[in-house]
Every structure is written in C-alpha cells, then in structure tokens.
C-alpha cells in the first residue's frame, strides 16, 4: 500500500512540475514563434509576390472569418492597384504544400504565387519552391476557372518529374481562388480601408 501511494505521488508531482514548466515556456515563446513564422515562412513568399509594393504587406494584414476558421489576408498596394494574398494547402508527395496566392482585387487575376512550406523531395518536387519559372506561369491567370496542369486540361506546365507536387500547387491555388470568391464582399470592404 505504501509503495502504491509513493508511486502515485511521485508521478503526480513529476507531471505537475513538468506541466507547469512547459506552460511557462510556451507563454514566453508564443509571440516570438508567431513572429518567426511571419518572417521565415510567410514573409519571403509575400515579398516575392508583392515585389515593389508601396506598403508593408506584413503589417497591413487583417483576418476574415471563413466558417469556423480565420484566414489571414495580406494587402499590397501595387502599381496597378490593390491586391490581396491568402494561403492554402495542396496534398503533395511528402505532405501538405503551402502556397500563397496574390489576387488583384480589380481584375481578379493572379498577381503571383509562392510556395511557403513543403516536405517535397529535394531536387524534384522542391523545385516548385526554388524555380521562379514555374511560379511565373500563374501570373495573370483568371481565378474564374480552376487552375490545373496541362495534363489535367489546364494551362500550367508541370515540373518534369514532379507532377504530384505541381498538382498540389495548382490545387492550393484553386482553393485560394475559391476562398477569395467566397469571402469577396468582406475582403473588398476591408481592402477599401487601405490607401497610399
């Protein structure tokens, strides 16, 4: 009996101590982690899409409710007008591929795309992120039709040897386009507030 009580007490104390320590560390790092994500994952992708924006898209962002989720929307003031960036994911060869898509709010065409997170094979699928020529193909495409690779009847040339990844990127782009169409009234309204 004594032994049993000791086991329970030791485990409980140990777990409580561990829980407390972790909660403290999590509270202290949460803000930094959020900033790190913005700088390292979203930041470079957004800068790539909004090269030459007159504002700081990382600062000019707002959230839009989409069903149960909240979507981050980044606003860019470009030469040709205003554009927004949203992120979505497509199923790749090594898990989800995150893609940021910039959409011009006036012409409703794609301004540019950039891959954020992925676990694709280096030298193969990973080229979707590294090869600017692949991302450049999305520029100017209308968001009316689904965006697809040529093999599926679309206009995007897949990266050779990485069809699955290419498809993941086009699927993510299509899903951002749909998200934009779904949330359009709210996005348009909020974007109006941003001016040079």
């Amino acid at each position: 009996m004594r032994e049993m009580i000791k086991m329970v007490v030791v485990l409980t104390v140990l777990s409580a101590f561990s829980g407390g320590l972790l909660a403290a560390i999590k509270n202290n790092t949460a803000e930094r982690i959020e900033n790190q994500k913005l700088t390292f994952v979203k930041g470079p992708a957004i800068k790539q899409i909004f090269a030459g924006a007159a504002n700081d898209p990382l600062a000019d962002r707002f959230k839009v409710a989409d069903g149960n989720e909240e979507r981050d929307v980044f606003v860019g003031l470009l030469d040709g007008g205003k554009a927004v960036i949203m992120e979505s994911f497509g199923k790749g060869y090594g898990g989800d591929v995150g893609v940021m898509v910039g959409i011009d709010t006036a012409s409703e065409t794609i301004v540019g795309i950039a891959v954020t997170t992925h676990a694709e094979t280096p030298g193969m699928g990973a080229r979707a992120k590294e090869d600017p020529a692949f991302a450049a193909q999305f520029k100017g495409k209308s968001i009316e039709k689904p965006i697809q690779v040529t093999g599926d009847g679309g206009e995007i040339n897949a990266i050779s040897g990485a069809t699955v990844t290419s498809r993941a990127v086009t699927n993510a782009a299509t899903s951002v386009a749909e998200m934009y169409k779904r949330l359009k009234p709210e996005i348009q309204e909020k974007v109006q507030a941003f001016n040079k």
Partner: protein
Amino acid sequence: MAKSITQEFVKGLWDEIPPFRLVLGLCPALAVTKSVQDGLGMGMATTFVLLCSNMLVSLLRKVIPPKVRIACFIVVIATFVTVVELVMQAYTYPLFLSLGIFIPLIVVNCIVLGRSEAFAFKQPILPSIADGLGIGIGFTLSLGALGAVREALGNGTLLGHSIFGAGFEPFAFMQEAPGAFVGLGLMLALMNLVGKK
C-alpha cells in the same frame, strides 16, 4: 568497475558511438541526415535532451519507485523535448522547419530512454552528465558525418555551398531513405574495419 568521469565521456565518442556502435536511434539518423545542418541540429537537440534527462533521472533515482520508472523517464524526457521544440521554434525557425516531426519524436528515441534506464538510474550525477554529453556529442558527430556524405553526393553541396561546380549531376538516390541506409551501412563497415586492428 568504476570508470572515471573522462572515460564515461569518451566512450560515447568512439567505443559506444551511436548510432554506429549502439545501433539505436536509427529513425532520426536516417530521416534527418539530408544535410549537414539538419544532422547537426538534430544531434544538438538530442544532446540537450540526453544531458538534461540523464541529470534529472540521476538526481531523482532514489525517489523514483522502480515499478514506475519508465513512466517517470518518459515524463522527464517528453518535458525536455517539448522545451527544445518550443525554443527551436522561437529562435531557429528555419531549422525547426527542416527537422519538423522528428523533434517531437526524440521522446521515443531509444538512445535517450536507453541511457536513462541503463545508466543514469544507477549512477551518481557526475558520471551521468558525462555519459549524456559523450553519447550526445557522439550522436551529433555521426549525424553530421552522415549528413555530409548525403548532402555532398545527393545535392552537390556542403552546408549549402556548392562543392563540385555546376557540371555535377546530383545523385538523388542519396537524398532518399534507401540512400541513407546505404550510407549508414558503408560508414558502419568503415568503422568496423578501422576498429578491427
């Protein structure tokens, strides 16, 4: 029987160097050695966890009832792993991105649990620290070396710098899991050859 502190430390660097001599912890060794940086990062994370868990387990060895020791070890190890994960996310985010799921998986790394069970639970704190540090550094060196071989052959780079020039066609096989097995096997063979004398 009683070895000196230095001996406990040094054994982790050659005599019992993981994952070659103690063929434990193969999962991270195969999965995250695509580049030198990933290998070293993983090694350092594991070293930190090994050091802290060895220390704490050794301190608590008189208090922990033997029947629930494994559960206690896991709580201790899991706590330190989560600490590493959070700190890594907060300060070295790019490294966290490339190591991903393998950081939480340090919890079930047999090396860490193995050292707690086989060593720290029975030894005073100083030898336990030396043991954790030695095994951890050995693991880091192994992963770094395996990462170097795989990165050089599979991607033509070393720490991100191109080493073979533009004419080199990457040997993509080395970046895949089978390449990791082959690389590990060859290194193990080499070590056995050298150690045989």
